[in-house]
């Protein structure tokens, strides 16, 4: 390598199109991939490290960009999104559920994230259990969908395409966690929801006669942001991250090693015996620092929805 070239690389950054980067380093799997034609060309940054490693990184996509249907079906390459919910730290305030509903314009007759007041046996104290979609690795819902409207992506997320859904509701019957909800009537989305335009990655604007559920906020993850629920939890009880990175982050900006967290805190998954392999882990509700459900000063888990939900 000539001195000029080395200086050029070191002095700054070579900004090249994805295709150019691919031509430069064809050997390295994902970085060598040319950007797909209909995706906005991600700016690639080429740099030389002090160790002499030549690296290419892609700039994060802007929030405005709409993933192509191909990207929506495949997910974010190389990722395995995962969530850990610390039941010992959940005080049942319901902010996660409310923020989720607000961000996704979820109507009041349903919840994408529902907080259950659980009690495992008569002797143990009750605890709050926020229940998003578990994005199972063996999803019963995706198994039974007759048209592939609900699908499992390579990055672990299970999504619904409401432009294909025929409204048979088999997925709702199949989900053992009762996660899925349905647009029974004509949707009444606010202008903000319709303005953005539809993508399965955010699930609105809604369509009558189609199913919907928690989507793990893949549009947020594409921008490197935590899902709404994880980002707002006042207790930092919801961790989210990439299993491939072996790390999860919470609303307090703490980032910890996923495998260590699961190991040290004896994590479990809901109804493990069903074999659905959820991508959401729970940390047991031990050594809590807040009133248990029903005790004086306890929160209500955002369960004030009355008769509208059933």
């Amino acid at each position: 390598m000539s001195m000029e070239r080395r200086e050029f690389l070191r002095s700054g950054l070579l900004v090249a199109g994805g295709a150019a980067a691919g031509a430069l380093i064809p050997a390295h799997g994902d970085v060598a991939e040319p950007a797909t034609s209909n995706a906005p060309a991600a700016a690639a940054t080429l740099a030389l490290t002090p160790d002499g490693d030549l690296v290419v990184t892609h700039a994060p996509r802007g929030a405005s960009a709409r993933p192509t249907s191909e990207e929506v079906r495949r997910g974010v390459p190389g990722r395995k999104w995962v969530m850990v919910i610390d039941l010992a730290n959940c005080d049942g305030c319901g902010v996660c559920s409310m923020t989720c509903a607000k961000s996704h314009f979820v109507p009041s007759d349903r919840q994408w994230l529902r907080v259950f007041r659980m009690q495992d046996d008569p002797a143990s104290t009750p605890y709050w259990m926020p229940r998003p979609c578990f994005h199972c690795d063996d999803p019963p819902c995706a198994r039974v969908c007759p048209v592939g409207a609900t699908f499992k992506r390579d990055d672990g997320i299970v999504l619904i395409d409401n432009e294909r859904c025929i409204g048979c509701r088999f997925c709702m019957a199949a989900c053992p966690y009762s996660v899925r909800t349905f647009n029974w009537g004509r949707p009444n989305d606010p202008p903000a929801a319709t303005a953005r335009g539809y993508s399965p990655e955010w699930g609105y604007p809604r369509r009558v006669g189609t199913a919907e559920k928690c989507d793990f906020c893949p549009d947020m993850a594409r921008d490197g942001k935590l899902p709404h629920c994880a980002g707002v939890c006042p207790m930092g009880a919801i961790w989210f991250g990439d299993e491939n990175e072996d790390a999860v982050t919470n609303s307090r900006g703490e980032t910890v090693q996923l495998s260590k967290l699961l190991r040290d805190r004896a994590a479990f998954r809901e109804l493990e015996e069903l074999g659905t392999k959820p991508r959401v882990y729970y940390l047991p509700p031990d050594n809590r620092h807040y009133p248990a459900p029903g005790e004086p000063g306890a929160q209500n888990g955002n369960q004030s929805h009355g008769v509208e939900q059933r």
Partner: protein
Amino acid sequence: MSAMTLAVRAEGADTAQFEADAVRRDLLATLHPIGAIGRVWIGSLVAIVGLAAAAWIYQLVNGLRVTDMRNYVSWGTYMTDFVFFIGISHAGTLISAILRVTNAGWRRPITRMAEAITVFALLVGGSMVVIDMGRPDRVLNLVLHGRVQSPILWDLISVATYITGSLLYLYVAMIPDMPILAEAARAAGRSPRLVRLYEVLSLGFRETPEHRRRLARALGAMAVIIIPVAVSVHSVVSWVFGMTLRPGWHSTIFAPYFVIGAIYSGTAAIITAMALFRRAYHLEQYLLPEHFRRLAMLLLALTMLYGYFTLSEFLTTWYGRTATDVRLLDLLGGGAGFGLVFWGWTVVGFFAPLALLVFPSRRSLASILTASVLINVGMWLERYLIIIPTLETPFLPASAAGIKPHYFPSIIEITITAGAFAAFMLLFTLFSRVFPILSIWETAEAAEEASPAPAYPERRHRMAPATIGVLLLFGALPSVATAHRASGQVTPAGAAAPVARPGNTQIALKRASEDGQDMLVATVTADGRPLAGVTVGFSVARTFGNMTLGTDQTLSDGSAAVAFPKGVPGDSIGRLRVLATVQAPAELVGTNATVTMSGGLPTRVTNESQPRALWSARPPLAMIATILGLLLCVWSTYAFVVGQLIAMSHVKQEG
């Protein structure tokens, strides 16, 4: 003069011929113009169907919100109707096919009605699924994007196969009646178009040995193949429930339980239909008490079989007492939940029919009919009890979320259900206005059987080879999505070191070996001179934040170090973005350096690790092979039957 006693009485061919003519005259009489009562009957049915159509339009405009189904109880009356009508459709198979295969002589006046029930029940049942859909406008997606991993596709395939088969079966068995009908219609001065219809449908059938032979072949093949097809249909319907993990549904006996229940309700339905037609068309001479009694014995056997299956299903879950099963059983049997319906169903659907049928001396026409009507009511309730209570008993109790799921059919659902029953009866009535509701030729055949020589020896049928046409069906199988390779990976950008701070404090970060140990070393300098006593935090960048590796204080040479992290996943080739950030003293906080370096674990990028899992876009190969194999067997038999019909229509005129 009845067909039964006639068979015994007839001694010579002449007598038989005379009696056969009488049968013909009597049965054709059912096609006479509609009377006043008939007009009221048809008018009311049309009105109810019209009302239901209006209700459906209202539902299409407003969505399924007009039903009482909600997120917990997401299936309701429409699914109940669907399962019920598919069950009724088994009447045709059992009575007609099984009795034909076993050559039971008493079947003859019953077969036509049974086969017609099958066709109409399937039409109505199939429509219920479309009515239940949130997006009936997208029904074609089942073909365009169909996934054979879904039991709904199994349903679609097997119901389509069944409806084709039962239409074919109904038609084949009607062919010998067609020339008789054409002749009678012509003689009665009916419209030439009706005469023409009968003639076309007759395929030129005449009483020749060649025609008879081909007919017997076609009918024999259809009677055999339609039995497994019917069994498959109700098995598949049960699997829509059985393949989920829900308590009350996830049962291995569901398929046979549903099939038995289907034959049970189908037999009850045919007895009810027989009684109605007997009264309406004055068929007392043909539909004898003997027919009802034989069917009643069959019904009794099915009652016990059904009771046995029900006991087996409930006893097993009751005795096992898993938490979710107990919740379901408490809801079913308890006074607060479905107790009244549940115990009512055991009486109506089992104990009362058993009591009515079990004593031979008490087996009157009235009690047989009562039992049949009760069974049909009971079977509808059973389908309802299978669907709704289970949906009210989710694994995560709704009560834990402060929610009480409940369901009762809305006025729209009730109207549409009434319309479904009315449509079923209307189709049946209209059919009976155009085609004789009893098979003329088979009933007459009973008379001729008394003559010594069997007219047409039965032969074993050879199955025809599969036709290419069968393959057309496979076009409906889902298109296989092609896997695509990864596009550009999105990771946070930036790899630059060192970074300057005001005051010209700099921090340099590198990986180095110190005392044989793999270390991360940060060197803090101010205007080129090393700074001691600075707290440096080391971390590695993750998507949503920086994961702390450790902290260290700089020594006199300005260096701080922590062990290089082992086993931390990097990108696809193992690169890590490592950060060093000054944490103390306060005036230097925020000074940082970021370096991308190798040393992490390469992240294995898996592209669709399970390309043929049940949830994947593409189905398991064994599943495709099984479905194709079964379809090939059935449709090649259909092709053989059609081949016989074509051959029949090409038989040369004799003499």
